[in-house]
């Protein structure tokens, strides 16, 4: 039974909540727990028996970093991986429909679709088993998880038959409570899905024919007939038809919308590494830094033996960490340099940035409420009531922080050379 997987990676206009980090690298390649965000997806797909090909789909221009990553990943996971570029943003279903021949080539009789900006255990085999068990091998499966009643409103909400798990109702980001089962952005489809997307496409074409000015005036492409949203356009219609099922997982899951959620997602993946990739977790050993909890250190990084790292720290390629440095709940991107005695907490330190000695760079975590097992991370907006909401601190690429200052809850745009302390500011 040949299988395929499609990873929806979006494009440059997406990932705005990930700025300024998405200026340097496409968000899907941003490192989470030491490896590019979508590598976690690829690893999970590569483990599924019979999965023949992975297709990354988005509207990024061909990109050197992306090609290099794909080449390396093909090597490492021994599976063909290709990038399919949409000619415009076609929405979460438009691209799949446009490239349906590519997906079906080689006789795939089922395929996964994964949003790139989620972190998950990716229980893909369990989704296959679930479909097998309820008997209708021609049905579609959404991976669902439980949210709390308030946060569920930020997601696609699913009402399902308690016995059969058949989806009876689907609504994307409702304004009132519908269900606490939410869409994880991970799906299992059969080729029959293209008929359903095709119907939406035809309806769009007819509507555009009736009011042609809509098509002409659109400059952003959203009025094209080819732009189709899987959630609002397809799932909503499929609900109650007996074709759509939800498989609920209790495994970890989070969206990765804001930079703050990248730190949270790193924590989830680092936890998973103790099972899946113990070799990626740094150990306390003589002559090495002091490790507290889960820490990833790239083999090329140079970390002083008096530094104290963790929990939840990822140190990128070629990073230098000086004597007496403390890092906790942070991501240090490649080429950055942390001088002696610096203290870095809840921060993303951008590529090739430098932090002078005794500087303190600190953010405020936006972790989900630890007392609520179903709480999700809030993909906070930058401003609330006209004020910058306290968030993790982000240093863009090639930022220079002088010695002895404090940078608190701030976002520093790339190439800035600061000369003093900053708090709760966006430094442009």
């Amino acid at each position, binding site marked *: 039974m040949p299988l395929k997987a499609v990873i929806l990676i979006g494009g440059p206009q997406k990932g705005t909540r990930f700025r300024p980090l998405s200026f340097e690298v496409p968000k899907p390649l941003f490192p989470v727990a030491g490896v590019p965000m979508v590598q976690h997806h690829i690893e999970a797909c590569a483990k599924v028996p019979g999965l023949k090909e992975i297709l990354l789909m988005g509207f990024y221009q061909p990109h050197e970093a992306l090609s290099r990553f794909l080449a390396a990943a093909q090597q490492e996971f021994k599976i063909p991986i290709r990038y399919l570029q949409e000619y415009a943003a076609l929405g979460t279903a438009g691209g799949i429909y446009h490239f349906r021949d590519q997906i079906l080539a080689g006789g795939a009789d089922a395929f996964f679709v994964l949003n790139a900006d989620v972190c998950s255990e990716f229980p893909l085999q369990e989704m296959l088993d679930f479909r097998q068990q309820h008997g209708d091998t021609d049905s579609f499966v959404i991976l669902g998880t439980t949210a709390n009643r308030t946060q569920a409103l930020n997601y696609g909400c699913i009402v399902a038959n308690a016995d059969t798990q058949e989806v009876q109702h689907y609504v994307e980001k409702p304004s009132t409570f519908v269900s606490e089962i939410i869409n994880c952005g991970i799906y299992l489809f059969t080729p029959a899905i293209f008929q359903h997307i095709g119907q939406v496409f035809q309806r769009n074409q007819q509507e555009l024919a009736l009011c042609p000015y809509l098509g002409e005036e659109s400059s952003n492409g959203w009025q094209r007939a080819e732009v189709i949203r899987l959630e609002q356009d397809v799932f909503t219609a499929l609900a109650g038809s007996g074709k759509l099922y939800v498989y609920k997982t209790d495994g970890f899951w989070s969206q990765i919308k804001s930079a703050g959620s990248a730190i949270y997602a790193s924590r989830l993946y680092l936890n998973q590494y103790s099972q899946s990739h113990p070799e990626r977790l740094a150990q306390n050993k003589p002559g090495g830094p002091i490790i507290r909890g889960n820490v990833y250190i790239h083999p090329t990084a140079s970390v002083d033996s008096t530094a104290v790292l963790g929990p939840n720290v990822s140190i990128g390629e070629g990073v230098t960490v000086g*004597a*007496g440095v*403390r890092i*906790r709940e942070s991501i240090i991107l490649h080429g950055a340099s942390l001088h*002696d*005695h610096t*203290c870095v*907490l809840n921060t993303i330190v951008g590529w090739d940035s430098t932090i002078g000695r*005794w500087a*303190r760079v*600190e953010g405020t975590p936006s972790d989900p409420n630890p007392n609520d097992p179903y709480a999700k991370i809030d993909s906070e907006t930058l401003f609330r009531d006209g004020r910058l909401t306290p968030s993790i601190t982000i240093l863009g690429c090639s930022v220079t922080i002088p010695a*002895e200052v*404090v940078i*608190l809850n701030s976002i520093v745009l790339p190439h800035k050379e600061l000369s003093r302390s900053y*708090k709760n500011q966006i430094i442009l």
Partner: protein
Amino acid sequence: ATCPRRWRPPCASRSSGSASASPCPTRRSRWAQRLSDSRRPGAVVAPGTPRRAQAAPGPRLGCPRPRGDTDSRAAGPLALARDLLAEGGEPFFVLNSDVICEFPFAALARFHRQHGGEGSIVVTRVEEPAKYGVVVSEPDSGRICRFVEKPRVFVSNKINAGLYIFSPGILQRIQLRPTSIEKEIFPAMAQDGQLYAMELQGFWMDIGQPKDFLTGMCMYLQALRAQHPEKLHSGPGVVGNVLVDPSAKIGANCVIGPNVTIGAGVVVEDGVRIKRCTVLQGARIRSHSWLESCIVGWSCSVGQWVRMENVTVLGEDVIVNDELYLNGANVLPHKSIAESVPEPRIIM
């Protein structure tokens, strides 16, 4: 005794007998520090000669005595101690405890003897006299004509520095009731031609508030640099004027100074950066922390990778957990701080 609010933390739990917590190794500075550190609220009264005054073990008298233009009641205690002070007929010093200068006791005693009046007060020049009560005196003799509270036009640029010497005769003027020495006794003495002003040389600072205390400490250390540079600390990692008690321990890779005073038995671990701070006896600063413009109270423990700044004041025996940031925190004694204080506030 209660303390003025503004200086609560370091003194709130200290009894007047604990003045030995001085961070300074020299006698002179210990003296000054003792006064300011323990924030002894009462007038300091030491009978006899200037020498004895310096060696005095700290006052046996004490009463709440807010300084400056607040209601002053310093005179009452003098009446209380009438017998002690009148003993031997010698002049005695009276000092406000919350000022710092070079304390010219010998010169003041000489000046007092020379003019033969009942009292002498030390005055210091200020740039903006309109903010203070000023002293108008005769240029040559120094005899005080009058006091003018917050003058609207310029009459003098000299203010009361809070250092006095009196002959026992003054005691006749004071009754056993709350009395402001500045407002009630001095004007009468001036009227009678019994009060003289001696102008202070060098620096002077009212150190009644923590912020000013730190400024006063900087001035004091600068004066020490000029007069007794050998008392200041030097060596690798020491920057500018730094005073370190010989019993204090400072770790490797620290940078201390400028303007730091480190008290007896203090332990500063490796990789610590301190500038413009007073660290009182028995405190411990753990490795890689960074402190600027702080007063660290007796026996405090400041954790690793702590950053404290902007006039953070820790009372006695405060514990600051690792990795915290304290910005202008005013922490009462015996507190344990487990969360950062990103904006200035009082921690009770």
